[in-house]
């Protein structure tokens, strides 16, 4: 085992900030949607609105980071080794096989992660923010010439995506336990240093 520096400071900060935002938004959002009573409707709406706006603003920094650092390349989907990865999580993992696509500095994500993170970061989250923003500015649709929109539809998309994100979060949280120890991946996202197998080719600048 050796350690490589995989996640930069901003990247880790963004990950955990977004986690907090998404957690608050899910808890308050589901309450607004009538699933339970926790904070009270009015407070839930207020917290949801301001958290959503904060997320929206900070998301632009993430977009800037992803574009200017070239990290966007980490999200380009590939079918290479996709089947092997699916096979690994379906069977190999139970037999103690090695991961077919080990983490590397220039390839943080396996093909399955690339695809799911791309769908999440490039489609689901932006659409969620857009529908959320429109939902919030419902009263100026007319002034913005958006009166062709229908609140029930916009809200419907927002709610459907919420549950999609909830599903992602559940699976994502479970997947963090699939490293060489149960908490290895979580630690990596906290410290930035990921353990990789010794036989991996690692450049000098990656080493601890």
């Amino acid at each position: 085992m050796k350690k490589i520096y995989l996640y930069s400071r901003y990247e880790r900060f963004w990950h955990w900030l977004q986690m907090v935002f998404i957690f608050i938004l899910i808890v308050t959002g589901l309450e607004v949607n009538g699933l339970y009573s926790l904070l009270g409707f009015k407070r839930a709406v207020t917290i949801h609105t301001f958290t959503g706006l904060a997320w929206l603003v900070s998301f632009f920094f993430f977009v800037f980071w992803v574009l200017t650092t070239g990290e966007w390349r980490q999200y380009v989907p590939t079918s290479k080794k996709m089947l092997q990865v699916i096979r690994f999580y379906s069977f190999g993992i139970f037999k103690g096989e090695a991961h077919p696509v080990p983490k590397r500095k220039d390839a943080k994500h396996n093909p399955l992660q690339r695809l799911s993170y791309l769908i999440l970061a490039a489609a689901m989250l932006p659409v969620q923010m857009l529908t959320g923003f429109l939902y919030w500015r419902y009263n100026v649709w007319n002034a913005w010439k958006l009166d062709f929109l229908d609140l029930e539809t916009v809200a419907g998309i927002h709610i459907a995506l919420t549950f999609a994100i909830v599903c992602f979060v559940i699976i994502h949280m479970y997947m963090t336990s699939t490293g060489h120890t149960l908490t290895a991946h979580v630690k990596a996202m906290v410290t930035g240093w990921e353990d990789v197998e010794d036989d991996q080719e690692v450049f000098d600048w990656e080493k601890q």
Partner: protein
Amino acid sequence: MMKEFFMQSFVLKKHVAKTCCLMALIMGCFLPPVHGEDGMKPVDKGGFAAMRSQQIKINHSRYEILKQDFTSGDEVTKACLSCHTTADEDFRKTIHWTWLTPGPDAETPMGKAGYSINNFCISTNNMNDKSCSACHAGWNGKEGEINCLVCHGQKEFNMTEAFDDLNYFKAESDDESRDMAQEIQGNIKKTVEDIGIPQRKNCGSCHFYGGGGNGVKHGDLDNSLATPSKDLDVHMAGDGGNFTCTRCHTTRMHEVAGRTYTSPASTTRKSLIDDDLMPKITCESCHSSSPHKILAKMNDHTDKVACQTCHIPAFAREKPTKVWWDWSKAGELKDGKKVKTEDYMTIKGEMRWETNVKPEYDWYNGALRTLTLKDTIDPSGIVQVSKPVGDSHDPHSRIFPFKVFRGKQPYDPKSNRFLAPLLSGNQGYWETLDWESALTLGMKDMNLPFSGTWDFVETTSVFPITHMVAPAANALSCKECHSPMGRLAGIGGVYIPGSSDNAWISRIGVFLAMCALLGSLGHGVLRFLVRKGKGI
């Protein structure tokens, strides 16, 4: 020289004015903000009457013409008109006098004196049902002069009765009668001299008692509003805004704003900042269409939800209002005598009363659609004698609270039209308890046919709830509507977060989330079992 002097004084005045403005501005900075909770606009605590008395003060007791010995109401009015020369011309054009408003065609005027009906006393039978005229603002129905005192008299005193008594005692010759006559004359004089703008009790003398008793008809108007507590009406309460009715029901040439009938009380939703000469009849007039704090979500509701919907959580909050009136049960005697209890009256039928009633809600653009005696009805179901006009697509419509009044009333099964019985007077139903003659006479007064057979049909009518505005703290909480079985369940045409709208998406979503959770757990458990003993 003179010109120079004027110029100087003009410049001086300008200078003084500038200084005053500046001082006011500086002072203003140190004054506490006038806006209260939730951006509510300030209200002047002295009340409208106090404000008006500062603007103009007339002591009517100093007018010689009011010091005469009046013997009839008409004489009093003539004295009023000797100064207020066009008051009667103006007043006779208003619905307070005509009780008429244009109907579907020229032959079918609507209104109490027209062909409109309700499910209380049903109709005035072309003003022939005299008990109805008790609330007409004349001395004797539409005959003779208008009655200025009913609205402008500041003393509570029954003038009609007083004149009857006066003329009776005057005709007698004994000393006691003469004394009585003198005393009554004195009271009449005191009443005539005490004149002002209408107070809550003036308007209330009719509007609190509509339908034949206190609180019967409207639900949001009863004599608890004469001196209301702040909890009952935040605007009208003495320790609140101390508003008189005319504070909102602004009046122009005796035309009082706020009539809700075939057309809305106000078609614009302007605030006084947009137009300070318009009637102040809507909430928006003073509160604007974004009355809450900046960015408060409540401001985003005003395009669909009327202020009244949240700010009047219940009506008839202190005194009961009638909610059910079944005419078909009328006529039963007990031991040969007429019964008169809260729940049953021989002359009127079965009643039900409720206090602190939750309104029912509907889309409403301010107009009501009321049936007339000429309309054909479908008696197989419940007939809506009046219903709100409006729908969710109409930009002028809002979700509005209503009192829905239910009951049973007579109709003609041959023609499927409503019937209007004559109720008061010697030949009226209240005296004879004979439906056939009451209906025959009533329909004859309306010049409408009656087949001779009658039956009773269940009906509903609606009354917009707009008075009894509660303090902000008592307004509805979000949950009242934003919950699966909230107050607006089934209203349609609007998406209400947290209600049962879009519930199917949530059901699928919860199912998928459970799948993800169980799948992950299953995967984890399998990993644990298979690799047990092999390390992790």
